[in-house]
């Protein structure tokens, strides 16, 4: 899911608060609340789900909209589809 969206931009990510290495968290990691690790220094960042609730809700809405769009694209690509 979100393959098309992911391919659109490589600019996303934020600097590690310890070593400044660019950390790229995936949408799935944020939605599932997984811990994120900095590839530069190994710092573990835990998502505060309560404090991030509005953002997670917006991401969930985006995720659902992308899934619907991808389903429609797949349907349109089926042989015989108009």
């Amino acid at each position, binding site marked *: 899911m979100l393959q098309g*969206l992911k391919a*659109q931009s*490589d600019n996303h990510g934020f600097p590690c608060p310890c070593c400044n290495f660019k950390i790229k968290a995936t949408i799935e990691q944020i939605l599932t609340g997984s811990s994120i690790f900095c590839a530069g220094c190994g710092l573990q960042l835990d998502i505060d789900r309560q404090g991030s609730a509005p953002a997670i809700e*917006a991401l969930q809405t*985006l995720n659902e909209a992308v899934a619907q769009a991808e389903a429609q694209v797949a349907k349109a690509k089926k042989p015989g589809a108009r």
Partner: protein
Amino acid sequence: MPENTVSHIPLSQLVGSLVRDIVDADGMAAKATSDFIQNVGFDEKGELRTVQFSYQQVVPGVGVKRYTVSVPLLTLVPIPILGIDKAEISFTTKIVEMSQGDSQAPKLLAKIAADAQSNSDATSETTNIKFTLTMSRSDVPAGITGIFGLLSNNIQVTGAPASGQE
């Protein structure tokens, strides 16, 4: 045929209208990117949506300290930069009339021709012209780069009471 349909229009308008339609479509794509930024990155009050992370770090002489970092959601989500990357339109026009306007250059009146065959009939009063319009755009808009710069300035780190040392 609709009443306001004309059989032929100035060639410049014909070509210009195709270019304008492409630019309009590109504008609509840019609007979609703008809507994405607005709807995902900001809430109903216009406040920046952020994701909060916490992490622990050993501070010499203090021990393990817990910090919270607030990251704008837009820095975590790839922003779909939509737009027409390249447009290529091929069409053939039939010059049906040439009028001498106020300016020195004659004004050509044309209509879209049915096929792209060149007109080899020397006795014909019309002439076909084949066009290939190619448009392209630059990659990342400067505005988007600016947004990333502003968002990076909104990453905030705050300290919390030391873990197990309150």
